[in-house]
Structures are given as structure tokens and as C-alpha cells.
């Protein structure tokens, strides 16, 4: 296990978790989770289905409250009692299910809960800012006055990411942002993740796709059955990562990889 500190990370972590647990009845979804996120770094959170990734995201987004443990934001202990509290602090989340209102249009969704001039909505200003955000993400959305129901999966993902950036957050969490995207759009989202990092934000990226994770992550934190199972650098080998994710060196995935010629595998490692 290599405890790596990214070159861009500096000083105190923005967000750190110490011993966070979450129980749903008799099920311990999270047990003693420790995690640090520094400004200007991308932490990838990986793990098998049911490893607790989404639960952890929901706890940090204020959707679920941890059963025990502490969360520090910029060095101070905080209680993320509600989604609006998390937003206030500067923790923005793009959920796996995107959480968009299908009956509202793109502008209305991006500004939902953050409307400009609550008593006399400034539609023009909101529309202009929505276009600016979307253009920054080089989004391909024909009209921001179409309801979200009429958009494709990738377009919805872009809308959700644009919405999370609206409040200038300090930490942004992306839950499976590339799962529903095509090749070009995946690349765009990864570019976007890097641009967000350059702006000095901490990014928590959850993904099943090891290629994506390696491409942008500064550190890779592995969860297994609701527990920490190691922190890796992107140059860790696939075997190491898969072993940590599945909890065993000898398993179906590594056996399968072993069947391929060792020369081929070594060549692959070299090109990385």
C-alpha cells in the first residue's frame, strides 16, 4: 500500500473523514472510513458494487447522516445535516441518478434552489449564465429552454455537472459521471474534471472504469465491503487495484488476466 501525496496537493486537506460509520438497521454500509481530499487533486473512489461508494457520497452530500464518526471541512468539524448545509459549505454533488426535475427546462434545473432574485426571477441573467456554464463545458445542448425530459443521457449529465459548478464549490463529487456517456463525451467530462482541478477544487470521482480513473486521478482510494482497503497512485498495477477491490489476489478477474500471455501484459504495463 502506498500512501501517496499528490504533487498539486498542499497544506491541510479541505475535506477529511475520520472513522465514519453508517448503519442501515443491521447492515453496516460504512465502517471506520478515513478519507482526505486536498485542494487541486482528484481522488478516485473505487470499489465493487455494494462497497459503500454511493452511501459515502450521500453522507458527504448531506442526504444520509453518518451513524458515527467525524467529518472535517477546512479543518473544522462539521455536521452535514441536510443537502442545503452541504451546499452552503461548498460540497457539490452530481448524483448517479442525476436528480434532475424532468418537467423543468435546463435553465430551471441548473438554477433550482439558487434562483437569481427569488421574488422576481431574472430569467435573462439566468439564461445567459446557463449558456456560459454550458459553453465552458463545451456542452452540446440545442436549447436551454427544452425540458430535461427531452435530453439524452449525456446531455443530462452535462446539465447536472453544470448545476454543481454554479455555486463555486470547494469540493465536487461525481458519482459515475461517465457511465452513460459516449466516447467523445467521456473525454469531455474527463477534460472537465481536469479543468475543475486546475481551478483548485477538490474532486471526488467515483467510477467503475479503471481507464478513466487512471487518466485523471491523483490518488485512488479503494473501498471494500464498507471499509477502507488501501490508497493507491495511478501507476499502481491493475492486479494490485483489482486485488484491493475484490479483496483477494486469487479471484476470477486475476485468473482471467493470468491466462493472457505474460509478455502481452508486460508490454501493456510498459506503455502506461
Amino acid at each position, binding site marked *: 500500500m502506498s500512501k501517496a501525496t499528490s504533487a498539486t496537493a498542499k497544506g491541510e486537506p479541505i475535506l477529511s473523514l475520520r472513522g465514519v460509520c453508517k448503519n442501515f438497521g443491521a447492515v453496516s454500509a460504512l465502517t471506520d472510513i478515513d478519507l482526505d481530499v486536498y485542494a487541486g487533486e482528484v481522488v478516485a473512489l473505487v470499489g465493487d458494487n455494494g462497497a459503500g461508494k454511493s452511501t459515502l457520497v450521500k453522507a458527504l452530500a448531506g442526504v444520509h447522516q453518518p451513524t458515527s464518526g467525524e467529518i472535517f471541512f477546512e479543518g473544522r468539524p462539521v455536521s452535514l445535516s441536510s443537502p442545503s448545509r452541504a*451546499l452552503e459549505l461548498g460540497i457539490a454533488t452530481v448524483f448517479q441518478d442525476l436528480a434532475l426535475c424532468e418537467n423543468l427546462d435546463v435553465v430551471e434545473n441548473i438554477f433550482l434552489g439558487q434562483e437569481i432574485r427569488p421574488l422576481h426571477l431574472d430569467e435573462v441573467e439566468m439564461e445567459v449564465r446557463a449558456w456560459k456554464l454550458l459553453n465552458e463545458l463545451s456542452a452540446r445542448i440545442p436549447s436551454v429552454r427544452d425540458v430535461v425530459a427531452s435530453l439524452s443521457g449525456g446531455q443530462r449529465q452535462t446539465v447536472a455537472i453544470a448545476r454543481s459548478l454554479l455555486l463555486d464549490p470547494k469540493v465536487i463529487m461525481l458519482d459515475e459521471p461517465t457511465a452513460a456517456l459516449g466516447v467523445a463525451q467521456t473525454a469531455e467530462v474527463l477534460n472537465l474534471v481536469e479543468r475543475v482541478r486546475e481551478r483548485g477544487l477538490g474532486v471526488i470521482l467515483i467510477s467503475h472504469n479503471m481507464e478513466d480513473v487512471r487518466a485523471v486521478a491523483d490518488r485512488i482510494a479503494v473501498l471494500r465491503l464498507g471499509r477502507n482497503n488501501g490508497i493507491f497512485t495511478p501507476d499502481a498495477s491493475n492486479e494490485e487495484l483489482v486485488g484491493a477491490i475484490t479483496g483477494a489476489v486469487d479471484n476470477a478477474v486475476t485468473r482471467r488476466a493470468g491466462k493472457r500471455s505474460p509478455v502481452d501484459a508486460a508490454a501493456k504495463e510498459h506503455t502506461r
Partner: protein
Amino acid sequence: MSENETAEMTTLLDRSDARLRDDSGISGTLRGFFDRVRSGDLGSLPVIVGLIVIWTVFTTLNPLFLSSNNLVNLLFDCSTIGIIALGIVCVLMLGEIDLSVGSMSGVGSALIGVLWVNQGVPLPIAIACALAAGATMGAVYALLRTRLGMPSFVSTLAGLLGLLGLQLYLLGNTGSINLPYGSAMVRFGQLMIMPDWLSHLVAALAGLVMLVMGLRRIQQRRAAKLSSGGVAGLLLRVAVITIGLQGAVYYLNLGRGVPWMFALFVTLVLIMNYAFLRTQWGRSMRAVGGNAEAARRAGIGVRKIYFSAFILCSTLASLGGVLSAARLASASQQAGTGDVNLNAIAAAVIGGTSLFGGRGSALSALLGIIVIQSIANGLTLLSLSSSLRYMITGAVLAIAVIVDSLARQSRQSHGRA
């Protein structure tokens, strides 16, 4: 179109995508309208078509129907239940329902009778008490919905019975309390009419306000490099509205004129319309109705939204009851019973507010109640028995809900949900 304008078009922020068709100008406006209708985004089209059909049928059966004095009566009757329907729009917007609005209006009217006539409490305080009772009841429903997860369908059904009991208890053995004729309250409910000049002025003002707001919007959007729809379409709309309103007012003034009570109703509709379309609250209402979990994660206080909707609904129901007491000059055991409940709900749905939540407008209460009252009024003029009246109104409601469901399916298949 001048060179200059074409050049501007290409740089517009929201028209830069090559896949978009340019819908500017009058022909574009019309084309966009037909596209929307075909995909199931009907707006107030069914209700206007329905109204034309209903009025044609009743006028051929009895020419008195379209006489100006009958229409003035119609407007008086619209106002009370229309205000109740306005409250219903609020709860339907969240995908909830309030089945107790009829009983609530009965309690409102009973409170006026008991407090004002029997106890001698000053009228404004009596009205305030009735409204407070409505607000309390709404808060109870919201509490049951948000804390106990009780479906509003059940809690308000229980409320229907409970409030009916309360109404009977308040009225006591006599069963009916007459409001003094000649009091301002009863005159407001039965006689008070806007002066001719004022009604024309208000009708002209409506078009003027629309024009000024529209021009300002176009100017702001142009300044921000957004497409603006163009002045021609706006002028067309303003002209149609102004001519329509002035014509209607002129015709009503041939009879008694425009009732103040109807003016109050329209004012409330306009206030609610503004609240729904131009405030954060209205947007939150639609968001919660569309996807409550997404709204919660966006930081909206979903509980507060539920409270506001239920409280508004019950308060408006109580206000409707107070006005119906004024209209009938009495607070009786019959107030708010029978078809009041369903008429209010039917009005909102017929007007275009969806039963499934997330879609609706304050104007739907106004349009819908005119349809419902036209049917009631027309059938009364034909001196049909109430048995037939109920059946016909029921059929109209069923048709309205069918149109709503079909339009919803069509919207889904056209990706407009």
C-alpha cells in the same frame, strides 16, 4: 429582414446550434404553436375549444344563455368556487389533492354567520377568523403528509367528514343563519358592479401592461444576445387580448356590468399566476411536484413547500366559503356540500392543471371554472333536473381527465413529459 439583423441572428447565444429551427416572426410563432399541440403540450387549447362548443350548444338551445345579464350572473357564481379551485391548483401542482375544500368552505361560511351575525364580532375580524381556521386545517394536512407520510387523499377525506361535522356543530339547531341584506358584505356578493369607465380602463390597462412588459423583455433579451421572438408576435398577442377584453367588458356593460367579486377573483388569479411563474416559490412548487427527491437534493425545503401549498389551499377554500355566504346571504348547512368539492377540483383539471403533479397554472382555475359554471348555468336555464345535471358534469370531468392523460402520454412519447 435586414442584413444587420441576419448577422445578429448568427451570433445569438441560444440559436448557435445548427440543429435548431429558427422560429422567429409570426409564421415561426404559429409553427411552434402547432408543433407543441401535436406533441401533446396542449396548454389552454382544449378548454377554449370546449368553451366554444358548450356556449354554442347552450345558445342554440336557449338564446337567453348568452344574454349579458346571464353572463354577469355566471361571473358572480364563478368567483366563489373559482377561488376554491385556485387553491386546488396549488395542491395538484405537488401531485397532492384536497378533497375537503367543500367542507372547509362550509366551515368558513358558518364561522361568518356565527361570529358576525350571532356574536356581533366586527366583520373583518370574523373574516380573519375564518381564514385562520382554513390556514390551521391546511397546516394539519401538511403535518400529516410530511411527518407521518399520510397520503393527502386519505387525510383530506377524513377532514371532509370532520369539517362537515364542525360546520353542523357551529350552526347548531337552527341550521341556517341569514346575513343582513343591505350590509356591505351581501351587497358585495350580490350587487356591487364596477363602473363602466373603470372596467374599460382596467381592460385597456391589461393590454398595456402586457405590451410594456413584453417590450422590456425583448429589449433585455436582445441586450443579452438571446433570441427574443420579435415584436410582431407580441403586438399580435396584445391586439387579440385587448380587443377580446374590451369586447367582453362592453358586452357585460350592456347588462349589469363586471362584478367586483369577479374582479377580486381575477386579481387573486393574477397574483397566483405571478407567484407560480416569476418567483422562486413557484419554481420550487413545480420542482417538488415533478421530482421531490431532486428538489430536496437541490436544497429546497420540501416540507415548507408542502405546508405552503396545503395552507394556501385551505385558506382559499375558506375565503371561497365566506364569499359564497355573501352570495347567498346566508350561512346554511347546505353551504359547501353537494358538488362544490368536485366542481372546484374539476375546474382546476379542466383548465389544464395535471392530476399527476408538476404542471399547472393559476389561469387554469379561471378558465376551468368558467367551463364548469357555464354547464351548470346552461343546464339550469334548460330547467333540467339535477339528476341530469350531475351526470353531464360528471361526463365533462371524465373527458377532461382523459384529455389530460392522453396529452401526458403524447408528451412522454415526444420527450416533453
